[in-house]
Each structure stands twice: as C-alpha cells, then as structure tokens.
C-alpha cells in the first residue's frame, strides 16, 4: 500500500519510499533493512491483526448479549476470548508502539541513520510474522483453537486437547522478536545519538523506549523459558508444573506473571512516551517536569518488575508475600501519577490546539487515570479478594491496555502517519471518529466495573439473568466503538491513497528532530547529521515573545 504512495513523489531528494534497491516490488520491502520500511511493515501487520482481534472482541460481546447461547457454543466462545487475548496482547500491543513508531522514529529523533543492528531488526519482523502464522495454524489445524485463556494456566493447559504446543511456540517466537527489538533500541540509544544529543536532550519518547527496552530484555526470556518448559512437559511428560506429575502449578503462575505483569509496562510506557511528545507540541510550550517524566519511566520499569504476584492474591500465598506485593503495587502507582500530573501541568498556560492527535492524548490521560485508579482499588488486599477474577479486572485491563497502548497507537497514527507517508487524512472525519470511539469505549467497558463489584466471574460463557442489563449496555457500546474505529481506519487508509499531499517538514509545530527532516523522510534520514544544542521542547520563540512584551 505504501509503495503506491511512493510513486507520486517527485521531490528533489530520494525519499525512503522512492528508494530503488536491488530488490523489486514487495521484496523491496520485506528484504529491506531500512528502519523506516520495517516500521511500515510492522504497521501493516499490526493493524491487520488488530482488526482480527477487534472482530473477535465484537463476537464475544455479541455472544454475551443474552444469557445462554446467542451465536456460538461454549467451546467456540472459550476459543474466542483466548484468541482475542493472545492476538491483542502478544501480537498487537506488546510489539505495538516500539515496533511501528519506535522503529520509524527513534533513529530520527536521536539523530541516527538507522538502528544499531538493522539486520536483526528485520529478523525481529520475521519472527513476529512467523509467530502470527503459527497462531493462524493453531486456529485451523485439527485439534482446534486454544481454549485456555491468554494466561495458559496449568494444569488446564496441560489437559486441554486443543493446539497448545503451536500456540506456545508462537508466543515463544513473538517473545524473541520483542527481545531483539528491545536490545536493538537500547544499543541504538547508547551508541548512535547525534553529536550534542546527550541523555537529557533526548525526546521523552526515546526515554520511554529505553526503559521499555530494558523491561523487554530482562523479563521476556522468563516467559520464553516457561513456555518451553510447558511444551517439554506436554511432549515428554516431565513433571515441572503439572501436579499429576509432581510439579507445582503455582510456580507456573509466578513465572508467567514475572513476565506478564511487566509486559503491561512494555505496552504502556511507550504510549506514555507518545503522549509526552504530543502534549507539548499541541500546547506549543515546553514540557513540565522533563526529568521527572524521564525518571518515572525508569521507576516504572523497576517497580513494575517487582509486583507480579498481585495477580495471585487469591492463590494462597504466605501473608508476608501478600503484604509485600500489595505494598509494592501501591508504590508503582506513584511514578504513573507523577506522569499524569506533569502532563496536566504542561497544558497550563499553553496555546492548545485540539487536533486529532491531541484529542487522543487527552483521552489517553482520562482513560489511563481510570485504569490506574481501578488498579489501586485492586491493590488493596481485602478488596482484591472480592474483585479478582471478576469483570472488574476485565474492565481494568481494558482501560489500562486499550485505553493507554491502544489510544497511544491511535494518537501516534494521527500524529506521525502524515510525516511517514507525506499525505494527510481528513481532520473533520478524524475528530468525528475519535468521539464515536471514545464514547463507545466508555459505554463498552465501564459497566464491567459494576458487574465485577456485583460478583460476575470473568471468562464466563453464560451468566445469571441479574447481570444481563450490564451486558446489554456493554454490547451496545461495542457496536458504537467498533463503528468509530472502522471510520478512523477508513479515514487513515483513504489518506494513504488519496490524502492531501503534505511537503512541509513541521506539520504540527513540534520541536523534536523528526520535524526538521523533509516529509516523507529521505532514505538516510538527514541531509546532514544534526548537531544538537538545545533540549527537545524548548520553544525558544515563547521566551523571546515574552521578553518583547516586557
């Protein structure tokens, strides 16, 4: 799709879209080690998978419209929510922002020509694609789609006859893709910053990717080895986790969450980075508390790796474990709160323009606040005992994961896609799509909190009639939200083909380096490598104007 866009550019320089290497057609893309092309490859794959995940989510909501059977039986329903979780988490939001926008913009933002290991970067994309193909195989091969939930809890994942081994292998490969991307970004940030680009002149998006990179590299191997052990257990009957073979099922839960809790931050921290770019740009002023936002990303990466067992408060741990994990859970809220306060303060005395990227960013702050605060509610031990494994947690996970990583991706798409392809979408349509999506989101997910408080267990195919009113509201919300998202996708896709051409370098008035290069960016990013002397959000003209007023 993007290669069509390439043909019409007749700039004086060679854009990365025009570049003719030794390969032709699709091979010029899938064999390219250019970080920008790899970013586009990821974008096409990720958004396609998102549509699949969204369709599954829509089917789940449709099934829950009435108690008992609405459209499918329980086995299909269980496969639906398993695949919805696996696709949305492992294939969409975990690669998400780093794979698409990190790849495309990180080198440009720190003044580099590419990432540190361009070939490994392409290898990550192939691992990602193979992981996706395996998931497709797991759905359609005999044995049937996995039905364990995305958490693969043992002993059920040992007992089920569905295609577990393929699914686990897929997640294993996706994990390696993630590790390699993280490794690449850490190295790039350490080694390839332009002259003068010291750590505290880096845009906050790079800081976010740096913190994320460390989480990916440190915790992803744990899920890799854990899933490998499950495969060994299933194939060779070695007792590791399965109590029937003398294993310990709780051990699996610990190892799973040692990865999967920090994974929430792999999704959320890059989105926070995106928001930290967009808010100053559309407020036309310097960001409030740069260092506090940068350091809080690192604090989240650190604390976030130490709270995993708060997913297991009802599992029967020792009192001291419950005490410590609950305490740390409350502490991890603090760096997130610091970010929210600093973003809000950045609006103060700005000159705010509500263009689509800004709308998504403000929605992000609102949804992330609800997601974070409902996390606090569940951090309290006695309350969590009541709420865990109910719809409350399902509401929380959707506000946190979709409200931050999802809305972060939508914000980034509206912010950076015009820069990437040199064409812009229809502003009015984008705003309409935003409001439909945002309103639908809240109608869809907010009732989950009420249902959860009333005791509705999660992952339930059927439910008692007393919960139906909330399910109906929620399902109607899903129709509204899906309409909004489809309108947004239509608008963005249309811009790729028939969007208005943009050639100006700085579309929104941003101060980071990607806005100093031509649109779309040249093959090697910079006409000449920048020499950085000021921080990322200085907005010098504001200070000059103020002095003139005096």
């Amino acid at each position, binding site marked *: 799709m993007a290669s069509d866009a390439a043909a019409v550019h007749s700039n004086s320089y060679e854009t990365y879209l025009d570049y003719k290497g030794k390969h032709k057609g699709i091979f010029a893309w899938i064999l390219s080690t250019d970080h920008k092309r790899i970013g586009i490859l990821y974008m096409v794959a990720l958004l396609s998978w998102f549509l699949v995940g969204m369709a599954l989510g829509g089917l789940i909501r449709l099934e829950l419209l009435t108690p008992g059977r609405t459209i499918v039986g329980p086995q299909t329903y269980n496969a639906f929510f398993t695949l919805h979780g696996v696709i949305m988490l492992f294939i969409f939001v975990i690669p998400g922002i780093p794979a698409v926008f990190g790849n495309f913009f990180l080198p440009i933002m720190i003044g580099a020509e590419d990432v540190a290991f361009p070939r490994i970067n392409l290898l990550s994309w192939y691992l990602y694609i193979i992981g996706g193909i395996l998931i497709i195989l797991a759905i359609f091969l005999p044995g049937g789609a996995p039905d364990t939930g995305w958490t693969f809890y043992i002993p059920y994942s040992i007992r089920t006859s569905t295609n577990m081994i393929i699914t686990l292998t897929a997640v294993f490969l996706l994990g390696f893709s993630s590790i390699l991307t993280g490794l690449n970004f850490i190295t790039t940030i350490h080694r390839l910053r332009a002259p003068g680009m010291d750590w505290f002149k880096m845009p906050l998006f790079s800081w976010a990717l740096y913190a994320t990179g460390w989480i990916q590299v440190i915790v992803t191997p744990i899920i890799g080895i854990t899933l490998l052990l499950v495969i060994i257990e299933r194939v060779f009957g070695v007792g590791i986790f399965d109590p029937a073979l003398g294993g310990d099922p709780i051990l699996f839960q610990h190892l799973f969450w040692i990865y999967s809790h920090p994974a929430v931050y792999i999704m959320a921290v890059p989105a926070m980075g995106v928001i930290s770019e967009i808010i100053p740009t559309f407020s036309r002023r*310097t960001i*409030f508390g740069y260092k506090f936002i940068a350091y809080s990303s690192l604090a989240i990466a650190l604390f976030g790796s130490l709270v995993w067992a708060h997913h297991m408060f009802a599992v029967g741990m020792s009192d001291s474990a419950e005490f410590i994990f609950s305490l740390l859970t409350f502490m991890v809220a603090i760096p997130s709160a610091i970010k929210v306060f600093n973003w809000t*303060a950045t609006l*103060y005395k700005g000159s*705010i323009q*509500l263009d689509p990227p800004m709308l998504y960013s403000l929605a992000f702050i609102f949804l992330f606040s609800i997601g974070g605060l409902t996390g*606090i509610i569940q951090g*309290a031990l006695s309350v969590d*005992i009541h709420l865990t494994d109910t719809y409350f947690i399902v509401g929380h996970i959707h506000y946190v994961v979709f409200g931050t990583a999802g809305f972060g991706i939508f914000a980034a798409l509206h912010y950076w896609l015009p820069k990437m392809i040199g064409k812009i979408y229809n502003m009015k349509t984008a705003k309409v799509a935003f409001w439909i999506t945002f309103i639908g989101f809240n109608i869809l997910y907010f009732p989950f909190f009420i249902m959860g408080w009333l005791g509705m267990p999660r992952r339930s195919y059927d439910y008692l009639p007393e919960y139906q009113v909330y399910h109906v509201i929620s399902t109607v919300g899903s129709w509204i939200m899906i309409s909004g998202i489809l309108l947004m996708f239509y608008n963005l896709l249309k811009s790729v083909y028939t969007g208005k051409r943009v050639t100006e370098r700085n579309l929104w008035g941003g101060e980071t380096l990607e806005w100093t290069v031509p649109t779309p960016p040249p093959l090697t990013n910079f006409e000449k490598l920048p020499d950085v002397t000021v921080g990322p959000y200085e907005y010098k003209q504001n200070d000059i104007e103020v002095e003139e007023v005096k």
Partner: protein
Amino acid sequence: MIAQASNFVNETDTTFFIIVAVCVFFLLLITISMVVFVIKYSRKRNTKPVNIHGSTALEITWTVIPTMIALGMFWLGWVGYKDLSRPPKDSMIVDVTAQMWRWNFKYANGVQTDTLYVPLNKDVEVRLHSLDVDHSFYVPAFRVKKDCIPTRTNIAWFRAEEVGTYQVFCAEYCGLNHSYMYSAVKVLPEYDFNMWLAGKAQKTTVANTGSGSVKTSHIVTNSGN
C-alpha cells in the same frame, strides 16, 4: 445491589468505598484541570504560550501526598485481609472439593452435598481442594474468594450473618463448562442447620436424593452441568 451476608462485608465494603472516593477525587481533579486548561488556554484565547520547565516544590508535593494516601489505602486493605486469612480456632470445618465442573461439600460427620449449608453466626472454615485443574471458590455475598489448587489445601473462612441463599461461583477459568460451575450456599439458623445435618447423616446410608425432613430447607439439585 450485592447481598451483604458475612462478617467481612462491612470492613471490605468500607475499604472499597473509601478507596473509590479517593480515586473519584483524583479522577475529577485531573479531568477538571484538563478541561479547564483546554478551554482557558485554547489557541483562540491564548496565542502566547509561556514556557514553564517545572517546579520542584510541586513535584515533591504530588509525590509525597499520593504516597501517603497510597500507604493508607494499602494499610486498610492489609488489615482487612489479615482477618480474612486467619480462621478462628473453633470454626466448623467443611471440606470443599472442586472438579470440572461441580462442587462437593463434605461435613465433619461425613455428609456430602452439592449445595453448601452453613449455620447462622458461626465461624465456618472451608478447606479447598481440587481434583483436576485450578478452580476458585467464590461467594460474592460474603466477599470471600480463594483458589482451589490440585495437591494443595487452601483455607478460607467466614461467618454468615444473614439467613438466605447466595451464589457460589467458580472464579478461575476451568474449561468448557466453567460458567455453569456454580452452586449455592444456604445459611440456616443454627437449630435448623443442626436438624438438617442430623437428618442428612441418617440418610447417607440410604440413597442421597435430597431432604424434605426440615421445613426451612430443601435441596435444590444445582450441580454444574
């Protein structure tokens, strides 16, 4: 609204609503600030932005105050949980066995049922077992939940404080009929409960078809599938 039928309800609900109130306060604070700033400093009204790089005093304020509030909320949750996790010594013991997809409740005298009967205002300790995969014993009306893990015995307890019938759910996903794995807990006055238990004990040697001998209760066959 959700039924309130055990000794834990007051404390858990109070903790919940205190934390919810704090959360609503912060959510409103953030949202109202955002909306006010967006309106007041819109590009139409304010064409001249001002650079403010930050304020250490503010950063300290909005780190320290939320930390203190968070510690307070943590403490409330911990205190409530401590009570939940320690059954009193003289509790009545019921063995709860979960399996795909039904519940079995076994009393000290050997009586087994698929609906849980408990006496009013008496401490009941449930010992949770599983025969196959992970399940979770959940009584929303009591605010009690604990996982049933194979080869382990988890313990939970409660003191029912309202006569009535309440849902028992399986809260841990356990396969095909997970959503049908529910039962009920029936809270009877102590005398009625003892009568029921004695009546059941006599009948255990005969076919276990339910009990009509006690007026205040009859067994509903409420097994999972």
